[in-house]
């Protein structure tokens, strides 16, 4: 069956929200994010700022170098999620088939709607523009892959210093032709390593990938080679997934200065573990897998995980496991830029109690629930461990 998929993306979402609150920001180069002196990064930047080369995820210090007049706005997360909810309400109002990808991005399955896909896209865009005063861009195609790429391309065409508010439609049957001239990095699944290897093989565009023998790609890249060959020809059968259940809960911290102090790292691991545990308990989730993420000073990043028989959401368990994993990768001297903890592998919150669970751990559970209550009421910083002070 012919499908019609929209990819919708709010243009410079955080900035757009900030502009609503502070109209003086309109037309100014500004960025939402952390302070340049404290190694903050750009979370979002206005289109005028982008004209100077500022991009999201860039260190703020670099952004200020590129654009000395850059206005830096503090991140106001609650405002963004409230606004995101209103956008999602409009999307759900349009079709029940909405797959939320992030705070400002979603796929919609619009198959079978009466009318031309372009007109439908214009209608939706207009509603978001008018009701919420937010700019947004849409990519329209017969599948998720092409819709998303189309949206990127549509936005890239409008480099005016204004939000693009673009719509790009790829008519069914023209997917492969549409993708052919684009650089391979646009294709989902082509990371820097794959790209480098492909360039060595003389492959530059998505069309070049499509023109390769499937066997060759499989020989060189394995399963991903097979997938890429399909994608390069604009083929993608993935459905729009309506519910996106939480797959993992994680928490990480980037240090102001690279750290190799054992006590400080342990303290951070404990804080991240407690944060994750609390969020798990709040959502009634228990996970079987604990994961740690460590970014070294040279920016290489590793993850390690450990899986258990029984799901849990106990802070102490998360911390002990994370610490154990960490001690296996850290030589005691290497400097660390970022450290994070996550729990996944969720199961029914039913918990089989253990015979050997000591009175200690019962006591621990009780204390934990109390702490959660207090933090819930008085905020994160209301309680600290003696060792953290």
């Amino acid at each position, binding site marked *: 069956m012919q499908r019609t998929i929209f990819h919708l993306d709010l243009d410079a979402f955080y900035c757009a929200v900030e502009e609503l609150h502070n109209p003086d920001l309109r037309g100014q180069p500004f960025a939402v994010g952390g302070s340049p002196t404290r190694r903050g990064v750009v979370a979002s930047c206005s289109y005028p700022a982008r004209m100077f080369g500022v991009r999201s995820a860039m260190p703020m210090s670099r952004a200020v170098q590129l654009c000395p007049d850059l206005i830096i706005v503090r991140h106001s997360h609650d405002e963004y999620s409230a606004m995101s909810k209103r956008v999602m309400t409009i999307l759900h109002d349009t079709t029940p088939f909405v797959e939320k990808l992030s705070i400002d991005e979603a796929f919609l399955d619009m198959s079978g709607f009466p009318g031309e896909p372009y007109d439908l896209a214009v209608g939706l865009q207009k509603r978001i523009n008018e009701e919420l005063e937010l700019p947004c861009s849409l990519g329209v195609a017969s599948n998720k892959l092409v819709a998303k790429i189309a949206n990127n391309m549509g936005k890239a065409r409008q480099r005016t210093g204004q939000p693009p508010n673009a719509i790009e439609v790829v008519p069914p049957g023209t997917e492969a032709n549409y993708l052919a001239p684009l650089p391979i990095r646009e294709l989902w699944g082509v990371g820097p390593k794959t790209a480098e290897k492909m360039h060595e093989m003389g492959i530059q565009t998505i069309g070049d990938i499509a023109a390769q023998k499937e066997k060759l790609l499989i020989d060189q890249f394995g399963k991903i080679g097979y997938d890429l060959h399909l994608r390069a020809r604009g083929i993608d059968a993935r459905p729009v997934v309506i519910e996106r259940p939480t797959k993992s809960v994680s928490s990480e911290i980037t240090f102001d200065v690279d750290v190799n102090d054992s006590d400080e790292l342990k303290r951070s691991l404990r804080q991240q573990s407690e944060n994750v545990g609390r969020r798990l*308990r709040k959502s*009634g989730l228990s996970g079987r897998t604990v994961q740690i993420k460590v970014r070294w000073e040279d920016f290489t990043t590793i993850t390690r995980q450990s899986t258990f028989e029984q799901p849990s959401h106990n802070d102490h368990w998360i911390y002990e496991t994370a610490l154990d994993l960490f001690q296996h990768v850290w030589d005691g001297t290497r400097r660390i830029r970022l450290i994070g903890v996550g729990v996944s592998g969720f*199961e*029914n*919150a*039913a*918990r*089989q*109690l*253990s*015979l*050997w*669970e000591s009175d200690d751990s019962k006591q621990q559970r009780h204390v934990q629930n109390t702490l959660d209550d207090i933090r819930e009421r008085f905020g994160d910083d209301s309680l600290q461990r003696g060792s953290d002070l």
Partner: protein
Amino acid sequence: MRVSVLQENLVRGLSIVNRAVNSRPTLPVLSNVLLATEDGRLKLSATDLELSISMWVGAKVEEDGSVTVPARTFYDLTSNLSPERIDMELNTRNQTINLQCGGTDTNLRGIPAEEFPLVPEADPNAKIVIPGEVLKHMISEVAFSAAREDNRPVLTGIYTNFSGNTLTMASADGFRLTVRKTTLDFEVGEELEIIIPARTLVEIEKIIDDEDEVFVSVPDGRNQIMFHMGDIDVISNLIEGSFPEYERIIPANHSTETFLYRDEFLRACKRSEIFARDNSNIARLRVEPSSDGGPGAVNVSAQSNEMGDNTSMIDATIEGTGVEISFNIRYLIDVLNVLRDDQILLETNTSSDPGVIRPLGRDEREQFLYVIMPMQVGQ
């Protein structure tokens, strides 16, 4: 080696010792069975280095000797020979054994007996003697709750303690504990405490006959426990380490006693299990004492996200307060399946305290106790 045996005797012996042959042996020679003449009999031995079985078969020995032959092949061959005398002769030069039976002539290549691990022999005059029926009954009631695979290997074993005139066996997998005791007719000298792999005990249970007298010994060095009965020796290696202290897990008191008919309770649990399968095996027991002094009821229920739900109401005599408690239903089915008693007693406190199951009306010499940890749902 030159020896003659009756086909039936040989096949029966092989069918028993072959229980100790692992299909994926760690050494090639372990897929073989050892044949050795001994005091005018033929000894058959097999081992997987955890469990070893030897059996002596009546034979006419003309020349002593020993060899090992592939266990499965040898069994398949001999079980298809006609039921008469088999004459075996070993050619020591090429370690090939020749079998003559009726009109059949077979040559089977073996491996030298020296390469076979030493299979020790049990003490036929051991001081500890247990009736086969008693030992079988014990094992059948305790082995099921040992851990299958565990980070703590001791939990894959059965804690076994001889002390005074009591033999205690216990097993636990982290979520449930079984303690089984029997009173012996004699006093054991020195207290003895070992851990036997559950896997080998289950095999031993199958080999023992109700009528057997089982002679049990643990030689000095204590790496093995040996069972001797009739013509059979069964030897199990022991697990290293110490078993967790389980006594303090057994609840000292309870607030509710529920008396149930085992059969009825088991069937209710099995019905719930069908629905609990895709829901962490969780089933809920609601214990409702009657308000007017009549019999109370236990409500067993489970629900599946896809299939629906099931509730069974069964009559019970209840003393104490009402309680709602959830269990892994498989853990309940397991224990109700191994017991043979008509009635059982379930002791409970709150929904997060362990439950205890005991059989009712049993010979005081054969004590059984099962502790099961509940499941907690949601927050």
